[in-house]
C-alpha cells in the first residue's frame, strides 16, 4: 500500500481502492494510461511477465520458502519485555495466519537459557526413578531407537502460561501478535511416554508424578501428573508438521503435554524421572505461580482454560472500506474440544454464534468465522469460547474479581477490539 493509500484509509476515504486501481494502472503502464482508465484494469488488459515468460524450474529452492511478498509476518519480540535474548519470547503473527496449523518457522519461542541446535546422533533420553522401587530398570534411548517405536501424530495447541499476561492490569500492547501470540498449534509426531515408562517397568501405584528435564543450559524441569501419562496423552515428540522439530522448538526431542501451559512441554528433552512426589522446580516455585489478591500464590496451575480471540480484524489493523467482512478467529481449551464460539459487535451486549470450521479436535486450536457487514460506525468486537465441559470464557471483570490484577499467568479473559469510523482497530478492555 502506498503512502497515499495509507493516508486515504486514515482519512476515511474508503473508496480509495477503486480510485487507486486506475492510478496504479497509470503508474505502471504510462503509455496505456488512457486506454486503461477507460477500458479497465491494466493488470487484466496487459498480460504480466509471469504469463508471458518461462518460470523457474523445480527444486530451484530445494527447501521451499514463502513468497518474497510474504516478508512481513514474522516472529517478533515485544520491546522491553525481557532484558536477555536467551530468556525471552518471540510471538507468532496470529493476525495473518489461516486455519489452525502454525507454520513451524513462525511457531512462538520461549527459551530459558538460549537455544541450541543439538546433534541428534549425540542426544540421549534417559528414564529413571526417584528411587529403585518406582521403576524396574533405568534405561537410555537414542533417537534411532525412539523412532523405531510405535508412534502417534496429533494436532495440539501450545500456549505459554504467560500469554496475554501483559494485559492483566491494563491494555499494554497494540496487536494480537503481542496480546495472544505465545500460542501455536502443530501436528506433533512421537512416542507415547507410557510406552517408554512401561518398557522400563514403571510401578504406577507408587510413581504418581513425572519430572521432565531438558538438555539446554537451564535443564528446564517440570512436574507432570502420572494420570496424564497413563491416559496416553503425553508423548515424546520428534516430528512437527511433517518434518523434524525445529531447533527453536526443541529439536530433536520435546515433550507434548496437551492442554497444559507450554513450559511443561520440555524442549531438548533428555531425562524423564518418575517419582512419588511433585518436584517444586524453579519454574513451578518462583515463576509460573499466580499471585492472588490475598497474597497467596497458586502453585502448579497448569491447564490453559478455554479462551478465544478474533484475529481478523484485530488491533493495529485498518479496515479498507464499509461492507462485508468474514470475521475470523481462534478458540481453544486445555480441557477438551471447543463446543461453541459466540461473537459480539457491540461490546458484549448482544451475541451471535459463529461457524466452527473443522477439524474440531481435542486440545487443539479451532478456527471460527462469522459474517459481518460493517456500516462504518464504531463497533467493539469480542469472541467468547465455550468448551465441551460447558465452561464459558470469562470477562475481564469476572477474572479480576477472583484473581486480582497481578497474576501474570493464565489470563483467558474475553478480548475486545474497538473499531472507529476511520476503520482503525485498536486494543481495548471491556469489563
Amino acid at each position, binding site marked *: 500500500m502506498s503512502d497515499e493509500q495509507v493516508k486515504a484509509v486514515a482519512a476515511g476515504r474508503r473508496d480509495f481502492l477503486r480510485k487507486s486501481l486506475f492510478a496504479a494502472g497509470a503508474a505502471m503502464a504510462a503509455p496505456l494510461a488512457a486506454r486503461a482508465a477507460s477500458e479497465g484494469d491494466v493488470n487484466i488488459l496487459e498480460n504480466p511477465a509471469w504469463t508471458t515468460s518461462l518460470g523457474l524450474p523445480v527444486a530451484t529452492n530445494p527447501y521451499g520458502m514463502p513468497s518474497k511478498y510474504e516478508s512481513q*509476518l514474522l516472529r*517478533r519480540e515485544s*520491546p*522491553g519485555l525481557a532484558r*536477555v*535474548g*536467551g530468556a525471552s519470547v518471540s510471538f507468532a503473527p496470529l493476525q*495473518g495466519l489461516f486455519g489452525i496449523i502454525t507454520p513451524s518457522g513462525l511457531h512462538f519461542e520461549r527459551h530459558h537459557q538460549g537455544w541450541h541446535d543439538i546433534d541428534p546422533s549425540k542426544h540421549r533420553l*534417559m528414564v*529413571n526413578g526417584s*528411587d529403585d522401587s518406582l521403576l*524396574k530398570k*533405568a*534405561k*537410555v534411548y537414542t533417537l534411532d531407537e525412539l523412532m523405531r*517405536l510405535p508412534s502417534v501424530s496429533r494436532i495440539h495447541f501450545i500456549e505459554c502460561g504467560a500469554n496475554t499476561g501483559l494485559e492483566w492490569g*491494563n491494555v*499494554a500492547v*497494540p496487536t494480537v*501478535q503481542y496480546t495472544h501470540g505465545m500460542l501455536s498449534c502443530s501436528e506433533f509426531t512421537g512416542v507415547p511416554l507410557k*510406552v517408554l515408562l*512401561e*518398557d*522400563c517397568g514403571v510401578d504406577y501405584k507408587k510413581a*504418581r*508424578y513425572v519430572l521432565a528435564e531438558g538438555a539446554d543450559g*537451564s*535443564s528446564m*524441569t517440570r512436574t507432570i501428573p502420572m494420570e496424564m501419562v497413563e491416559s496416553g496423552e503425553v508423548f515424546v515428540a520428534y516430528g512437527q508438521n511433517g518434518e523434524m522439530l525445529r531447533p527453536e522448538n526443541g529439536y530433536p526431542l520435546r515433550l507434548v503435554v496437551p492442554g497444559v501451559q507450554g513450559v511443561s512441554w520440555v524442549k531438548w528433552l533428555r*531425562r524423564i524421572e518418575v*517419582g512419588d*512426589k511433585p518436584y*517444586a*522446580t*524453579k519454574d513451578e*516455585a518462583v515463576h509460573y505461580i499466580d499471585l492472588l*489478591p*490475598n*497474597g*497467596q*500464590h497458586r*502453585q*502448579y*496451575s497448569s491447564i490453559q482454560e478455554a479462551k478465544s480471540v478474533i484475529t*481478523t480484524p484485530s488491533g*493495529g*489493523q*485498518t479496515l*479498507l472500506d464499509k461492507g462485508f467482512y468474514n470475521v475470523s478467529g481462534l478458540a481453544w481449551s486445555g480441557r477438551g474440544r471447543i463446543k461453541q464460539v459466540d461473537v459480539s459487535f457491540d*461490546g458484549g451486549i448482544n*451475541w*451471535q454464534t459463529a461457524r466452527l470450521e473443522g477439524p474440531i479436535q481435542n486440545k487443539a486450536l479451532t478456527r471460527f468465522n462469522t459474517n459481518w457487514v460493517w456500516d462504518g460506525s464504531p463497533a467493539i468486537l469480542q469472541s*467468547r469460547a465455550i468448551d465441551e465441559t460447558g465452561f464459558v470464557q*470469562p470477562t*475481564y*471483570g469476572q477474572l479480576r474479581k477472583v484473581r486480582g490484577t497481578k497474576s501474570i499467568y493464565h489470563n483467558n479473559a474475553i478480548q475486545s477490539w474497538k473499531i472507529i469510523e476511520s476503520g482503525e482497530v485498536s*486494543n*481495548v478492555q*471491556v*469489563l
Partner: protein
Amino acid sequence: MFRFSKPLFVFALFSASTVAVGFENYSGVGRAATPAEVKAWDIDVRPDFKGLPKGSGNVERGNELFEEKCASCHGSFGESNEVFTPLAGGTTKDDIKTGNVKGLSSGELPQRTTFTKVATISTVWDYIYRAMPWTAPKSLKPDEVYAILAYLLNLQEIVPADFVLSDKNIGDVQKLLPNRNGMTTDHGMWPGAPAKKGGIGNGGKPDTANKACMKNCKPEVLIGSTLPEYARTAHGELRDQNRSFGPVRGTQTLGPEAAKKAADAGTLDLATKSGCMACHGMKSKIVGPGYSEVVARYKDQTDAESRLIAKVKAGGQGVWGSIPMPPNGHIKDEDITTLVKWILNGSK
C-alpha cells in the same frame, strides 16, 4: 545386531496375539543406564531433599563466589533489576516468623523478589546447581552451591553471617523461609488427581463462571482501559507487520522521528543476533563493559571508530578485566561498522 533366541521368538508370537504390552516387546530398543550415567544426569533435588548431595559452604565463601560468578547479573547484594528480577529483599523478620510475606497482600512490595516467592529452599539449591552461572551452567560444585545459597540466605537475614549451610541443616533453614506458607494448590488448574485423592489440585473445578447470555446481556459497555499512545508506537511500524493485501492493512503508526527509533531497534536486533548482548549491557557490565561505559572511555579519541572495529573483529583482552572478548569473524564487516557506529552514537 540381531540375536533371536528360539524361546524369545515364541514369546513374541504369543504376545502379539494379546493386548498386553510387556516391555520385552520392544526388544533391541533402549538399554539399561549404567549407575554412572544415572548419577551424571539425576541432579534434581526435591522439597523433601531427596537427591541433595552431601556438602557444605559458609556465608563468607559464598560472598566471594557470588561476587565472582553472580554479581555481574544479579548485583553484589542480589538486588539488581538490570538483567533479571531481583533475588533478595522485600521480606521482614516478621515474615520469617509467620512464613507469609506480608508485602504480597498489602501491596507494599514494588516488585517481587525470589525470596518473597519461593516456599521451598530445595528449589533454589536445585536451580543454582543445574542452571547457574548464566553463561556457564552446571559448572559449580555442590560445596560452592551451598556457599552461594548461604550468602543469599544471609542477605535475606534468614541466617547469621557466620552460618555454614549443609545437607544436615538445610531442613532447619526451610522452617525459616519467609514465604514457606505462601503457596496454595487449591485450584482447578492441576491436570492430575485432586488433593482428596492424593494429588495436589481441586480436581479441575474452575474459579470463574460466565454465562453464555445472547441478547441484551447488559445495559451498557464499561471500558476498563484503552491502548495508550506510547504503546501504539512502541512496537514499531504496524503497517509492516501485516500483509500489504487482503481485507485489512496494518495501521501506520510511525512518523519520521519514530522511524529513527525503529532503526535503533534494528541495530539492537543485529547486536542481539550477532551475540554481543550476551556479554554487553546497554549501560552496565555483564561480562564485558556496558555500551555507555565504552562511549565514556573512547569519547575523546578521534580514531575510536576504527580502533573499535579492529577490536570487535580480532577480539581483545585486558582493557576491561581479565575475561577476553573472542574474535568475531562470524560477523560481516559492514555489520561490525554499523554496530560500532551505533554504540558510539549512544546506542538505544
